[in-house]
């Protein structure tokens, strides 16, 4: 199989099961950023996020049959494993960890605007890190991984209604936290 041409995760997983390193490389490159983003949001810590993601991809390499086609999309299964592993760590963000989440690059040349954007981003990071774990996971799966509500609910093994409730509470807390610092209007 020419794995360069394969867009389907299931096909890549079959190739991975046959020991195809290029298929594994392609699969990991496709999902790495978002898996890391979710882990970083849920753990609030770079080192933990990297360890979790490495562990999860090692599992994909060693046990590609752990994901079964037809139950959920591979990406949904992957994020579920990432989130569960993060929650298993049961660690609160370490001191200073909130600053470890980098601000997205801002193309604007104005230094003052950069500072404002960075401060706003830092406030958002802090507010997300202060959320309860489940709310943080719901936010990360929805906004960082970009999953639909049904997929995020499946990844968290909860109903769509329960996910929506988590999101409503999380966004209310984020809005209030950012409003207290003047970044959004209530």
């Amino acid at each position: 199989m020419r794995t360069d041409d394969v867009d389907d995760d299931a096909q890549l997983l079959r190739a991975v099961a046959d020991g195809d390193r290029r298929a594994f490389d392609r699969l990991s490159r496709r999902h790495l950023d978002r898996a890391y983003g979710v882990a970083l949001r849920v753990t609030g810590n770079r080192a933990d996020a990297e360890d979790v993601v490495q562990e999860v991809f090692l599992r994909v390499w060693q046990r590609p049959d752990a994901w079964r086609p037809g139950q959920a999309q591979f990406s949904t299964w992957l994020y579920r494993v990432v989130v569960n592993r993060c929650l298993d760590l049961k660690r609160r963000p370490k001191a200073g960890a909130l600053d470890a989440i980098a601000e997205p690059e801002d193309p604007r040349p104005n230094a003052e605007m950069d500072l404002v954007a960075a401060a706003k981003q830092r406030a958002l990071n802090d507010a997300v890190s202060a959320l309860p774990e489940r709310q943080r996971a719901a936010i990360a799966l929805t906004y960082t991984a970009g999953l639909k509500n049904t997929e995020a609910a499946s990844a968290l093994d909860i109903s769509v209604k329960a996910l929506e409730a988590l999101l409503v509470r999380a966004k209310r807390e984020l809005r209030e936290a950012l409003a207290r610092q003047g970044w959004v209007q209530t």
Partner: protein
Amino acid sequence: MTEHDPFERQLRVGLAAERAPDSLRRRIAEIPLEHLRPARAAGAPSRLFGALFARPGVSWATSFAAAAASLALGVWLGMAGLASTDTGGGEDALVALVFSDTPTTIGDVQ
């Protein structure tokens, strides 16, 4: 809240996944090298079958259909041979067909 809501837009931009660090990329890329895993072992029959049919473009269905057709043809030929009323003159008939002026049985030779 909709996607047009400024706060919703702020969340989408602010919480978007960033690029994973290069150190992590290297760690992930090295997984197959550090954790060598032999290809799945195949038995002799499956290896033989694979060598016969696992060519690009030949699907399992095509291979199976070809095998079934071959089997059916073989059975039909076999049944036809068993049902033949020719009780032993088959070889003689073939010789007579090819060499029309050659005696086909010992009894013809005087």
